[in-house]
């Protein structure tokens, strides 16, 4: 089994736990459990940039008071993780027509590229973003492309337990 993580799943690694309406959504304990599973876990190198960019912005806005040196150091460690495998964006073959179609139906370029790579590499894409799944599910062209590329592929939204996959 090969899992591909969307960026949000990586935040606890660098020191940020995610909450939703005051309830725990995804934290370091969850990530550590995931990392203990007997499966391959991938993520895109663009997620490293995305995490840093978001945390920098939140720090500038004064929403978070973070030690950005520590965040950077944790990102370096994540990039060298023995458990989480980094998929590099640039060497991959990119089908520009598909990427354009995906970008048309979803307004975030990083999300689109990360999702695109996941189809080529993994069995499951783990995301917290149901808008991405809904957009793709409603696009016949995108669904056909996914079925042709990887017919077993599934998008899992907000899933926290993976033992039964």
């Amino acid at each position, binding site marked *: 089994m090969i899992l591909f993580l969307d960026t949000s799943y990586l*935040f606890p690694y660098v020191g*940020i736990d995610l909450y939703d309406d005051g309830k725990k959504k995804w934290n370091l304990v969850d990530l*550590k459990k995931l990392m203990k599973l007997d499966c391959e876990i991938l993520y895109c190198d663009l997620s490293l940039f995305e995490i840093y*960019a978001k945390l920098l912005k939140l720090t500038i806005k004064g929403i978070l008071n*973070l030690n950005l040196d520590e965040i950077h150091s944790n990102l370096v460690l994540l990039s060298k993780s023995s458990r989480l495998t980094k998929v590099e964006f640039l060497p991959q073959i990119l089908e520009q027509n598909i990427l354009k179609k995906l970008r048309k139906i979803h307004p975030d370029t990083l999300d689109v590229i990360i999702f695109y790579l996941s189809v080529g590499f993994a069995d499951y894409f783990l995301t917290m973003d149901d808008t991405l799944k809904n957009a793709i599910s409603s696009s016949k062209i995108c669904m056909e492309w996914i079925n042709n590329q990887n017919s077993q592929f599934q998008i899992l939204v907000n899933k926290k337990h993976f033992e039964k996959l």
Partner: protein
Amino acid sequence: MEYISKIGSKGEIFTPKAVREKLGFHANQLISIIVRKNGIFVSKIRNEEEILNRDENDNVKISYHVIKSMDSEIEDNW
């Protein structure tokens, strides 16, 4: 803060005790050396276990929606 040190006959760079204590350097500690135009930057290399075994309460807690709201800011500022 600046510290003065010297280079040994075999190229060793000696870190003063105060620096070792401040940064937690110890014998056989793996370090990263980044070469810049006018010098080097030395830092401790931590291992994955160390970071994953930190106190879970040390993580900063934030709303997923706040994190997600940064998507458009990044996208708009490409």
